[in-house]
């Protein structure tokens, strides 16, 4: 018990270290990047004095060390300051975008994981049969197309040629009144982006789960489970899938932070107001406070996800021990 506690203690401490490293990396990387925030405000009528004025008003004329301390303080107190570009509190910017991104990515990730898993299990179950071939093929196809290709085609087809879904955004303009109408409207708007992400994403899950399952299904304990007269579903899910679960869970948690930054293209194509595009814009625009905060949050999410992956792993795999082998 003691060793376990120790392990988690060290694990949390080292996560903090990771955050610290990432924080400083973030800061210096941005300043390392050639260019400055006034670049995006270029206007021929600005005189050099006006430009200097601009830098000063952003506090960018101070020495780097001083800027660094300010930055660390901001990050640690979660008061991210004012965005250069929008002149609004960065918090506000993040807060208004986060729900959109989460509403897009969580269902998409979850659905593609669930769909992929279902298909993967079905393929493993129908080993050598048509189901397996179909799953393998569809999985491979799902994986093989560039995302904007698929998304644009979907948009053209289902929002333009056959206008079943809306073309853009996460809400009708003007938005409907009444809570339930809003919910329905939101769902209707998110359906196509989510569906496209699921289409693009389920393949890798299916292929992966199928491999794991095929292996597990060859083990002796599956034989016993069958001999126990358990329902085929129980054998498949309760035993085989349950045993294959640990790596699946790890992948799930690990893919969480990755998809956030990968959302840029989806957000652009479907005109969604989300974090992905915000990240890209603030980096390109040298919006230090905004980019810094966004990346800080992303790092936090990543670190937490990693930690969660480890925690959940120990839960789902009782065999695990972190002792050092000799």
């Amino acid at each position, binding site marked *: 018990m003691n060793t376990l506690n120790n392990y988690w203690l060290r*694990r949390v401490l*080292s*996560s903090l270290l*990771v955050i610290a*490293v*990432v924080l400083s*990396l*973030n800061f210096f990387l941005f300043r*390392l*990047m*050639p260019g400055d925030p006034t670049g995006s405000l270029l206007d021929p009528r600005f005189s050099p004095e006006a430009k200097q004025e601009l830098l000063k008003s952003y506090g960018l004329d101070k020495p780097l060390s001083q800027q660094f301390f300010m930055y660390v303080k901001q990050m640690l107190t979660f008061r991210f300051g004012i965005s250069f570009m929008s002149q609004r509190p960065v918090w506000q910017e993040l807060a208004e975008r986060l729900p959109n991104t989460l509403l897009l990515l969580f269902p998409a990730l979850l659905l593609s994981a669930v769909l992929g898993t279902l298909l993967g299990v079905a393929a493993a179950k129908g*080993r050598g049969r048509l189901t397996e071939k179909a799953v*393998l093929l569809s999985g*491979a*196809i799902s*994986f*093989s*197309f*560039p*995302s*904007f*290709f698929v998304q*644009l*085609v979907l948009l*053209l087809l289902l929002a333009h040629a056959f206008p079943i879904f809306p073309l853009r955004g996460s809400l009708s303009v003007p938005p409907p009144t009444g809570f339930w109408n809003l919910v329905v409207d939101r769902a209707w708007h998110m359906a196509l982006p989510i569906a496209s992400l699921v289409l693009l994403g389920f393949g*890798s899950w299916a*292929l*992966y789960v199928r*491999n794991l399952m*095929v*292996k597990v*299904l*060859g083990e002796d304990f*599956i*034989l016993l489970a069958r001999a126990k007269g358990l329902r085929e579903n129980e054998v498949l899910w309760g035993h085989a899938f349950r045993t294959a679960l*640990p*790596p699946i869970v*790890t*992948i799930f948690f*690990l893919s969480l*932070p*990755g998809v956030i*930054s990968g959302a840029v293209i989806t957000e652009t194509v479907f005109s969604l107001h989300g974090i992905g595009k915000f*990240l*890209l814009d603030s*980096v*390109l625009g040298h919006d230090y406070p905004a980019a810094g905060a966004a*990346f800080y949050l*992303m*790092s936090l999410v*990543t*670190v937490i996800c*990693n930690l969660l992956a480890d925690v959940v792993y120990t839960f789902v*795999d009782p*065999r*695990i*021990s972190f*002792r*050092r*082998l000799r």
Partner: protein
Amino acid sequence: MSFWRLDTLFLAFLSLLALLTPLLGPVNEAVAPPFCKPLWLDHESGKPLSLNAKDNSLSFTWESKPPKTFSVKGTVTFEDVPKSASLLLAGPSKTYKLVDLAGYRNFDVDIDSRDVLLKLFLGLSPFVDVSSVIFSERGTYSLFIASDVKAHLDLNLNIYTGKWGIFGTDQRGRDVFRLTLAGIRISLLVGIFATLIASTLGMGLGLFAGYLGGLADSSIMRGVDVLLAIPTLPILVVISGVWGRGLWQIVFVLSIFSWMGTARVVRSLTLSLREAPYVEGLRALGAPTGYILARHFIPEAMPLLLAQMALGVPGAILAEAGLSFLGLSDPLMPSWGRMLHEAQVFGAFTGGAWWLIFPPGLGIASICLAFISVGRRFEEMADPRLREMAER
């Protein structure tokens, strides 16, 4: 089970093409007007014409549907400064004044049916297609000068049907077919190398972390955490700013930022595998760690790894497309990802220019499919459980 199946043959064929593509010569040069359709697309439009008017006029017949564009280029020299002079194009029933030459002794003519100024000069809306107006009829057309002084002209009339080659041309007038061929090499190189490096790294570090445990584990995994947690985007921007955007930089960047997932997955596999009795038996034998990892863990992890690799190659090819999307790839390097991206940016999707989209799009997809299929066969070779009907 034979190794030479359709997928392998396909990949071998592609690799051969990739080796041969340098023979194509420069692919980045314009060969025809932009956005030409493939030649085989519609048979109704006539043949392109290229005529030279040496004397006063030029006659030709146009017997098919209107061409895509036409242009008149060259010089007109008058023996004296004309008071009234114009270049005319006469159709079967109507004559169009293309340009007013009055007041110039030498005139460089450069007219294109796309020019807005020409449309306005003809009294048309700037949004009509001049060539479809002028060539709306079939019959004899003539190009001539009407002036009060004698003129010498050296004019070239070119009529383009907007068709070229097997896959048409892109926005710069490059031959899409040749670009597609050249793209194979880049896509294959990037895909294969980036994945190889990333999976080797991920595999090695994941194995060591998982198997050794303790300090090795935590330090490697913290490294992974840092890499996972640093936003890749600014790093990509910085790297491309500092080192440039060549092929190998892309490979490097892609591999450096994609091995962590593999490492973690391999590590968790290792963690559960290392408790297996037979591994314990091997340790009891005093087997070197390297041996255990190489002989048992790698084969155990291989299916997983090959699956990841099979998915990784397509992933890298697609990521390269993504990097092109962010402008972080060499514009002179015609990869498929880049072609797709350019097509998208220049409106090929809404413009219905599917001949620009499908060659690279289906190319990527077919390469990816082939890789996945080959990867699966490798998996089966490495692990009999995936191959045989071992299931009860």
